[in-house]
């Protein structure tokens, strides 16, 4: 494995960092959190079109830049630092990865170039209402076919950016098993209701489908294996985002500990604060190592992906939660206020930790994999 970043990758990080510095300051994150869209379409078009960041990991034949998850991970880490409100996880990670995993050339040619350009936003809908875990057995959307083609009926929830996505990739059940269908977000028979998300910087919606026209993507009944890979990639991508967020809140805590004076000295000179922050540093660097490894695996060694992804799922979400939670404590009262950004990260951390499997679930899977693989 190779952990060294190339000059080009370092340049990419600087570019994304500068762009987000300019377009996603805290004031903007807060403004967008109050809007119905939840993101700024003009900024998204610049991000995708001008900078080419949405198509980074999409192959060139489908209008992307043909890079891989290492580059995408750099973007997500930077996005996580600033809580960038955008259909990045939904459209670029979930939807694009689902299309690529299903390998339907015609659908890819129809959808991926617009996703890469940012002119279409897409998302993946897989969970029924009140779902506790990612579980494809629980899918509650049914697909039926008649002379006019496929239609979908049922309800799906927790759909990332589901209220705004132009293209919905919906996991539905047919007689042959699970399949993925493309549904126009504005089509008749599609009713979308934003959910009241704990993390206001990332939106989710419930989508009720009532005989909505749909297009089968990939082979009927063959979605399960592809989706397992997609959730692994999503876990890894989310891990990179979580590391970015965790690193940022640790910086906030360290900066504050240096300037906040109590008992006549900066609180960062007290060992209780020093040791807390040192422990968080270990937590963040360990999580970062897990995420970077898994990004490399996603790009270069897909056979190792399930293990690498569960390693990420088993530690990065918890690392972000720990860091975001302790950041509030280091700040004291001001950290508990609405005006301070600490709670934005706290909410992002807790929500993102649950998106693609809980840490405990990932650790159980990791253990199953390593215990089965061992020949000792």
């Amino acid at each position: 494995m190779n952990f060294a970043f190339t000059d080009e990758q370092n340049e990419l990080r600087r570019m994304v960092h500068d762009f987000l510095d300019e377009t996603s300051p805290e004031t903007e994150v807060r403004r967008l959190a109050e809007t119905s869209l939840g993101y700024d379409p003009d900024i998204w078009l610049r991000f995708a079109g001008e900078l080419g960041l949405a198509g980074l990991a999409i192959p060139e034949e489908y209008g992307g830049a043909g890079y891989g998850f290492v580059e995408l991970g750099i973007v997500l880490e930077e996005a996580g630092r600033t809580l960038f409100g955008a259909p990045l996880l939904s459209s670029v990670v979930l939807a694009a990865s689902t299309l690529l995993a299903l390998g339907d050339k015609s659908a890819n040619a129809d959808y991926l170039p617009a996703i890469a350009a940012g002119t279409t936003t897409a998302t993946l809908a897989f969970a029924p209402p009140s779902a506790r875990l990612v579980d494809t057995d629980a899918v509650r959307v049914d697909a039926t076919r008649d002379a006019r083609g496929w239609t979908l009926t049922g309800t799906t929830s927790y759909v990332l950016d589901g209220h705004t996505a132009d293209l919905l990739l919906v996991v539905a059940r047919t007689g042959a098993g699970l399949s993925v269908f493309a549904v126009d977000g504005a089509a008749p028979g599609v009713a979308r209701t934003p959910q009241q998300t704990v993390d206001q910087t990332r939106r989710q919606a419930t989508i009720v489908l009532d005989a909505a026209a749909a297009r089968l993507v990939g082979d009927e009944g063959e979605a399960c294996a592809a989706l397992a890979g997609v959730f692994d990639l999503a876990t890894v991508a989310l891990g990179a985002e979580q590391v970015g967020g965790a690193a940022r809140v640790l910086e906030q805590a360290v900066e504050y500990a240096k300037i906040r004076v109590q008992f006549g000295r900066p609180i960062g000179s007290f060992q209780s604060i020093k040791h807390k922050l040192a422990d968080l540093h270990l937590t963040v660097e360990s999580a970062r190592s897990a995420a970077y490894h898994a990004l490399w695996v996603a790009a270069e060694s897909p056979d190792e992906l399930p293990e690498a992804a569960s390693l990420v799922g088993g530690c990065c979400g918890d690392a972000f939660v720990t860091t975001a939670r302790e950041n509030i404590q280091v700040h004291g009262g001001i950290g508990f206020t609405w005006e301070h950004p600490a709670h934005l990260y706290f909410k992002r951390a807790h929500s993102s930790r649950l998106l693609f499997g809980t840490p405990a679930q990932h650790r159980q899977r990791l253990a199953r994999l390593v215990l089965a693989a061992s020949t000792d």
Partner: protein
Amino acid sequence: MSISSAAGSEAGSEDFEDRATFTARVRAWFEANAPRRGSAEDFSAVHVVSGQTVEEFNEREEHAVEVTRNWQRKLYEAGLASPSWPTECGGQGAPEWADEVVLAEQSRWGVSTKMFAVGLEMAPAVLFGHGSAEQRAHYLPPIVRGEQTWCQLLSEPGAGSDLANVQTRATPVEGGWSVSGQKVWTSHAGGAEYALLIARTGTREEGRKGLSCFALRMTQPGIDIRPLRQMSGGYHFNEVFIDGAFIPEIGLIGGLGDGWLVLRTMLASERAAIGGGTGARSSTQLIGLVRRLGLQDDEGVREIVAAAVIRERTLDFTRFRIAAGHRVAAAGSVTKLLYSEHARLSSEAAMTVLGLAGTVADDPESAPWIERLLFAPGLRLGGGTDEIQRNTIAERGLGLPR
């Protein structure tokens, strides 16, 4: 045989072969020469932590030293011992990555020269950082050849975490210095040819400014080594009483009064050496234990296994990142803390998995874990306590005020 015929005595790193070629050659050499498990040179028994009597411990430790010494010599003869060192110091003048390649291969084969870490890692860190070319050419070649091992004479009864309080004194005499004082917690003092010594050359009031660093020959009159028994039952540590031992001029490393500066280099290197691990794969061994006990389907056991795998791999990946040039603040303290914590938690986890078998040391499954369990507290002390490491991370790594 010499693997490195390309590197002549004056070869600079620009003349050295590329990494892929070197790696392939090192791999082939290890394939042909690395000791197999179960062979007489098997390294899995080299990590000695216990003994019923000091004689038994010494016998086991001498055997371990012999196995390690032979391996070091073999590496040297193949041109693979510290290849990045200049040829006049016993190396090959190779780029720094050559050391990493050899280390990675050693780890893969479960062989290690960690037992000689003071000579192979800390002494060179100090000599390259603060010593003269003459000193390097004098002290380093016998280390690389596996002929001489080193120890450290740092802590004293009144100077543990507070090393600035060292009272052992070096007084100028004809041709060098005369040293007297008492040191403690010195590992491998018995077989060591030299010690890195911190002694007071100034006044007590000068604190850290009154300290200097020396290379002290251990095999001379005036040095009395008394083994201390540790909680693990081993005699790893020693008290060392020094009464008028002599150090020639060449033995002063760094300037007079620069001891604290040199010590910081030494401790950073020690942290990195401990954080670098011993090559023991405790999560792999834990997985083997769980399988043999048939506990794969126990949810609680699986949580324990996953936590161990996550700790061990993220530590490995963190080491790789540091080696690849990622900026990790206070990297040595980070890996040292992660490693000692992993050692502690893994041995505690194994006790949970073992259940009642963990109460007896003569069970073949429990024995190696009990050794680790009883050694783990020391890992959290050596090279600076957990608390000192956290202070270092906070102050030097994160920039918090003292």
